[in-house]
C-alpha cells in the first residue's frame, strides 16, 4: 500500500479509492471452489451458463455473455452495434467510455465518438441529442448508437432519473437508434432507486454490468441483449481475447455476488451518506460536499484550491499525526 502506512504500527487501513478493491469473502471462495467447470470456448461451462441465464433473467433480456472486464463489455457492445464503416456513437463527454477507455472504440473499432455535454446529474439534453444525430450527408459519419452511463461515475455516482430514461428511450425509438447502457454500477442504481434493475434498462438494447465492483466478485462483467446480439458479441469477445476456458470458477463468484452481495448495497450507500453528512455538518469552506449529489456509493469531496489541492488532501488522509491520535483518545 502507500508509503505513509508503513511507518505506523497497529493502524487500520480503509481503502476507499475504488469499489474494485473488494476481496472475495470466504463464502464466495467456497462457492468458487465447488462450481462445476467446463471449457467455455466450447460453451460447455455450466457455471458460466448459469450466470449468463441469471443475468439475462434479472434484466429481462434474451441472453447474456460473460466477459472479463467492464471495459471489454463496453467495447464489445459498441463495436457490435456500430458495424458499418463510418459509424458514430453519441455519448456524454464525461462518460467512462469516452474518457477512461483509451478511445478503444476508435482505436480498435474505427467508431467515431460524438459527444454531448453531460449535465451535472449525469444526463444530457435530449434536444441536443436530436440535433446531434447525423443526416445523410457525404461529410458526416452515420450515427448508429446512443450510449449512456448509469450510475454516472464522474458525476459522483449519480443515478439517472427514471423519467429521463423513459424519455430518452422513446426518443431513440423515434430516431431508430439503439441505446446501450454502461451499467457498471447498475445494481447500485437499482438499490438506490428501489426499483428492479430490469425496469431501469427496459428501453436499452444492450447493457454492460460489472460484477467486480461493489458486488465484490474478484473478476468479471456481463453484457446482456437480444439473442442475435449476444451471438455476434461472442465473436467480438473472441477476437479481443476474452474467451476464457474454465471461467466458471469466477462466474461462480459472480453468482454468489448477485445472490448475497447485491441485496446489501444499500448499506454502502448509507455509509457514504453518513460520511457526506459529517463533512457537510462541519460547514468547512475548504472541503465541502454537495449532499444532493450523493446517491450511491461514490462521494466527491470538493476542495478549495486556495487552501489545499485534492492531492494534498489524499496525502493527509494517508498520514496519522500525533495530535490526531491524541484527540481521538
Amino acid at each position: 500500500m502507500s508509503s505513509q502506512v508503513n511507518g505506523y504500527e497497529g493502524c487500520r487501513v480503509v481503502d476507499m479509492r475504488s469499489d474494485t478493491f473488494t476481496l472475495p469473502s470466504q463464502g464466495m471462495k467456497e462457492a468458487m471452489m465447488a462450481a462445476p467447470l467446463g471449457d467455455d470456448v466450447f460453451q460447455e461451462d455450466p457455471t458460466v451458463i448459469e450466470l449468463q441465464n441469471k443475468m439475462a433473467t434479472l434484466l429481462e433480456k434474451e441472453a447474456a455473455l460473460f466477459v472479463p472486464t467492464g471495459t471489454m463489455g463496453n467495447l464489445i457492445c459498441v463495436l457490435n452495434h456500430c458495424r458499418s464503416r463510418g459509424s458514430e456513437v453519441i455519448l456524454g463527454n464525461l462518460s467512462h467510455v469516452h474518457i477512461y477507455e483509451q478511445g478503444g472504440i476508435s482505436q480498435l473499432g474505427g467508431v467515431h465518438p460524438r459527444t454531448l455535454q453531460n449535465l451535472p446529474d449525469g444526463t444530457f439534453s435530449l434536444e441536443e441529442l436530436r440535433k446531434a444525430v447525423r443526416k445523410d450527408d457525404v461529410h458526416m459519419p452515420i450515427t448508429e448508437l446512443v450510449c449512456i452511463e448509469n450510475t454516472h461515475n464522474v458525476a459522483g455516482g449519480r443515478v439517472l432519473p427514471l423519467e429521463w430514461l423513459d424519455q430518452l428511450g422513446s426518443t431513440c425509438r423515434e430516431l431508430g437508434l439503439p441505446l446501450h447502457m454502461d451499467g457498471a454500477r447498475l445494481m447500485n442504481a437499482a438499490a438506490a432507486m428501489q426499483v428492479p434493475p430490469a425496469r431501469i434498462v427496459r428501453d436499452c438494447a444492450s447493457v454492460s454490468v460489472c460484477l467486480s465492483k461493489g458486488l465484490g466478485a474478484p473478476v468479471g462483467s456481463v453484457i446482456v441483449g437480444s439473442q442475435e446480439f449476444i451471438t455476434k458479441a461472442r465473436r467480438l469477445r473472441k477476437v479481443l481475447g476474452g474467451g476464457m476456458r474454465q471461467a466458471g470458477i469466477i462466474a461462480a463468484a459472480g453468482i454468489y455476488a448477485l445472490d448475497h452481495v447485491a441485496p446489501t448495497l444499500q448499506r454502502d450507500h448509507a455509509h457514504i451518506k453518513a460520511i457526506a453528512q459529517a463533512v457537510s455538518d462541519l460547514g468547512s469552506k475548504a472541503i465541502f460536499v454537495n449532499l444532493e449529489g450523493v446517491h450511491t456509493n461514490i462521494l466527491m469531496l470538493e476542495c478549495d484550491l486556495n487552501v489545499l489541492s485534492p492531492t494534498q488532501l489524499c496525502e493527509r488522509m494517508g498520514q496519522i499525526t500525533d495530535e490526531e491520535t491524541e484527540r481521538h483518545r
Partner: protein
Amino acid sequence: MYWSKRKKSSDVPQLMDVFESEHGQQGRRSHLLGDERPNEEGETSQPQHSSNIKAERGLTPKKKMKIEKDTPIIISEKPGLFSDDECPEESHNLQVQGLNITVGEVRTVSSELILSLDEPTVKEPSQEEMEEEEMDTKFLSGDKKKYVQKFRQFWFKIPEFQGWLAEGDSPYKAFCTVCNRDMRAGKSELQRHCKGAKHIKLMAKHQPLAPISLSEDITTEAGLPQSVTFVDLRSDTVTRPSRAMKNAMLEAAVGDDAFSEDPTVNSLEKKVADMLGKEAALFVPSGTMANLVCVLTHCWGRGSEVIVGDESYMYQKMQGGIAQVGSVHHRIIKNLPDGTFSLDELRSFFQDIDTICPTTTLVCIENTHNRMGGKALPLSWLDELSAICEELNLLLHADGARLINASVALGVPPSRLVARCHSVSLCLNKGLGAPMGSLVVGTQEFITRAAKIRKMLGGVLHQCGMIAAAGIYALDNIVSQLSADHNHARAIAHSVLEEHSSSVTVDMKAFQTNIGFLHCDNIRVDAKKLCQRLQMVTDSEEQEIEEKIIVMMLPITDTVVRFMTHHEVKKDHVKAVAKKLKYVIQEFDNMMFDHYKV
C-alpha cells in the same frame, strides 16, 4: 464348495438365484470372497499373497467363468463377512470338485475347474493395477505392519459413487464434492456416506460432475446413465483444476491488479519472466489476447507490418484480429510441415526494402506449431532465424501457447527457445492445466506499453490473484507431467499403427508433443464419422473390449482427426482409448459399405 453371500447395500436388488454346481450341490448361494476390507484398525487377515481373484455379486444373470491355471484362491476368514444365516457350520471345510480346501490355506486349482459365478457389472482393474493402487503398507514400530487402503481409481466406475466422488488430499483420502468433506478412502466408508440423509439431500440439489451432454447411446432402457468413462481429447484446454490447485487458489493473497497491487499476480509474472530469461511479464485472460497485445505493442506506429505463417494460429484462428482490431497489415509466409518456414523466402520479402522510410516489421513464429501437429521448432532453425532478424532489423515474437511442451520435447529449458525473441506469449490454460490465463513476456519497456494495450482491450482483471495462483501451481506441479502426455499421444498413435489398417493411418514420425493427427482414407471413413463413432458405445463393442468408453476427438478437416492428450488423461484411460480405437478401426475395416449405419 461352500460360499456365503456378502452383505448387500439396500438399493441394489437382491438376486435370488440358486447356485447349482456341476456336481449338483444345491441350496447355497455362491460367492467368491475377495474384498479384503480392513477393519476399524486398518488390519486385515489377508495372507501375504500378491495376486487374487475378486468378483462381486452383480445384477446380471450368472455366467460361467473359467479360472486360470495355477491361480490361487484366497478366502478370507473374517467372521463379519459370513453374516448370512445360510452359512453352514462346515464353512471352514470347502469342497470343490472333490478338492478339500481349508480356509487359510492357499492351493493351486487346476484349470479344468469351472465355477459358476455372477458376472460383475463393474470391471475389475487388472492385477498389476490392483497391486499398484490398492494397498499401502505403513510400517509401525518394530515389525508390525499396518495395511491402509489407498484410493482406487476403479471406484469412479461404481454407479452409486458417480457424480460426487473425488480423490482427497492424500492417497488415503476420498472427498465428497457435494457435502464438501473428506473421508477415509475405504469402500465401506464411501458406501456409508452416500447413504446418509444429508448427502442424499445435497445430491438432489447439486449438479453432477458428469459432462453436460450424455449421448443417448449410453443410457439404459430406463434412461439412467450407466457408468461410462469419458475421455476428452478434443483439446488440452479442457483440463480442469484439481483439488490441490483449487486449494492453492483459495489460499492466494489477492489485491487489485488494476493498481498492480495483487501480490500473487506479481509473483507469477516474475516467475514466468525469470523462467523465460526475460525482464518482465504481464498476465492476461487468454492466449488470443496475449498475441494481440504483443502485435499491437510492437506495431505501435502507422505502417507497421507483421509476417505470419499461413498455417499459424495467429493467422487462421484469431478471427483476423491483427487486422480487424489492430489495423495491422500482415504478410503470409508458407509454413513447412515441421512448423518452420523457408528463411530464403523470408529474405526475399526484404529485397526491395526502402531504407529511407523504415517500417516496423514483426516476424511471428509458433512453438509448438498447432496445425502442423504440435511440432517443436528445431533449435538450429530458431538460431538462424534470430540471426536473420537481427541482420534485417526485424522484431521477433514467439506465440508460445504450448512453449513448455516444446521445451519438454526437445529437452532444453524454455528460455533457450526464446532467447532472442523480443516478446513471447505463454498459455497456462492448456496443457499446464490452469483454468484460464496467459502471459505476455518481454523487456520492461515493452511490458509497460503492453499494459496500456491490455487495458484498452479490457484485459485488466481485478483480483485475479486466485487465477494466478492456479498458474503458479501449474508451473510447479504439472510441468513434470507433460512428458507423460507426449508418451500417451504416441501410445494412442501406436495402437492405430498396430492395426495396419488402411482406413485410419498415422504418421508416427510426426508425433513430437501432445498433439496427434489420425488420417482417414475418406473411402470407408471420414473424419466426422470417426469422431462420431468414437463417441458411441455399442453392446458388441462393450462385450469385446470390456470397456464403456466415450472418446472425444476433433475433426479438423474432412480427413484429419486431431487429438490432444493432457494431464487428465491417465494411463488407464490411454489403454482404454487404444482398445476402443482398435475395435473401431477393425469395425471400419470389416464393414460392408452399403450396410454400415452410423
